[in-house]
């Protein structure tokens, strides 16, 4: 089983969970129709598109509405801490949520009690919370962008907002940021660093970089980081070893972007439509 948890920017959405269907750029779950324009919904949509290619079942998702006030996030943390044990997950991806150390730790402690630990992936707010809680190496894969890598490399920053200038200005020297993130135990075994060039890292060693096709416009498009995380999660669930999954997701994200012929004003749903095509081209 493959699980995904995160928030949706709609205050009216209560905590819902189940297996969604993707239809007309919306996730359908219970009576809810959630647009896939950004965030966790975009991640789930890209995961579903990937799973379609490999003929695997859709993930089970845990969602709640939150526009930043934190109430929804709190209920999601609590629900996960109390209910994750009821399922047997092979892969679980945590995404947008208000970063809060105590609540995050409760979820981690509940995972520790599982008889078999899933392959754990974190991105966005949950990744921030895990790093601040000091549990980065309890996870298996983080998918930061360059700004977030600088944050992981800063042992003092509790949030990317506080990343110290000397690290932010050092973004061209990605290898030293990677080294520093591991030095302070703020990185899990695998890192997929998303940027102009994508970096696949295992325990500080750079396994591969991906920079083709280069589509500079993708950096401006909200959700291109979410789609790569959705794809890599689905590929690992589909049986790809993490290193190959990271490389394939990075390539497919670029190719789907290139196939969409984007401008910086393109919206992510346009690119998500090209994911199956990109994956099929790359896997022959």
């Amino acid at each position, binding site marked *: 089983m493959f699980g995904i948890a995160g928030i949706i920017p709609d205050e009216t959405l209560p905590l819902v969970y189940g297996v969604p269907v993707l239809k007309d750029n919306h996730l359908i779950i219970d009576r809810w129709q959630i647009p896939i324009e950004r*965030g966790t919904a975009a991640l789930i949509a890209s995961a579903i598109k990937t799973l379609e290619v490999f003929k695997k079942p859709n993930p089970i998702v845990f969602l709640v509405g939150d526009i930043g006030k934190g109430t*929804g996030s709190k209920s999601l943390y609590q629900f996960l801490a109390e209910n994750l044990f009821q399922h047997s997950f092979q892969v679980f991806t945590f995404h947008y949520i*208000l970063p809060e150390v105590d609540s995050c730790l409760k979820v981690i402690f509940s995972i520790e009690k599982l008889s078999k630990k899933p392959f754990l992936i974190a*991105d966005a707010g949950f990744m921030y919370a895990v790093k601040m809680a000091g549990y980065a190496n309890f996870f298996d894969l983080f998918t930061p962008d360059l700004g977030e890598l600088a944050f992981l490399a800063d042992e003092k920053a509790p949030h990317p907002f*506080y990343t110290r200038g000397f690290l*932010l200005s050092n973004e061209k020297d990605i290898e030293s940021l990677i080294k520093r993130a591991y030095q302070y135990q703020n990185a899990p075994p695998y890192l997929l660093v998303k940027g102009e060039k994508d970096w696949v890292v295992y325990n500080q060693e750079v396994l591969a970089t991906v920079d083709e096709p280069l589509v500079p416009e993708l950096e401006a498009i909200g959700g291109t980081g979410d789609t790569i995380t959705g794809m890599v999660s689905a590929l690992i669930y589909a049986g790809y070893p993490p290193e190959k999954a990271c490389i394939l997701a990075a390539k497919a994200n670029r190719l789907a972007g290139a196939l969409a012929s984007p401008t910086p004003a393109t919206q992510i749903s346009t690119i998500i439509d090209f994911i199956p095509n990109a994956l099929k081209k790359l896997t022959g």
Partner: protein
Amino acid sequence: MMEWLTKLLPTKRNKKDKTNQSSQKALLIFENTSEVIQAERILQTQGYKVKVVGPPPEVRKGCDLAIEVPVVEIPGIINLLKTRKIEPLDFISFSEEEILKPVDLFHVKDFGEYLMVRAANMKITVDKKTLTIVNVSGGGCPDVPYLASILIGLNLKNSFPPKEKGHTLCGYALHLAYEKAKELLCSE
């Protein structure tokens, strides 16, 4: 208010502090980041010279901000905030080494027709000719997808500042990127 005043009064052992009070700074701690953002706006509107910073580790919960204020102005600040129904949980003294400074480094990328500005982990992209906000990306806090959904399509000149509707540090970082984009594109 009495508790606040008691905390502010200099004790015998720190008589010397009294003379330095005019330059001393303290941090106001609030329940959540939304209150910090609201309080900052109110105080700045009223002419107080305050700035947002990260609280020291012992009071840090996660997505936190605090407001650095001059100690001598605390009574007035508390009174003003109370009239607006915002009350800090506490105030604390601090050393410069303990607090965290918000990001002040911006990355700007010119795509020809579009300009992208990044502050920390948040990016905003604007059509240079029409000044329409065409994309918002990055971030990991819950108000980011929300702010993106209501900002995209608006004109940079006429839109609301993100910190008015943001609740988190990512929302605040987006605000900084927005202000920088405005400075670069709307200054004439």
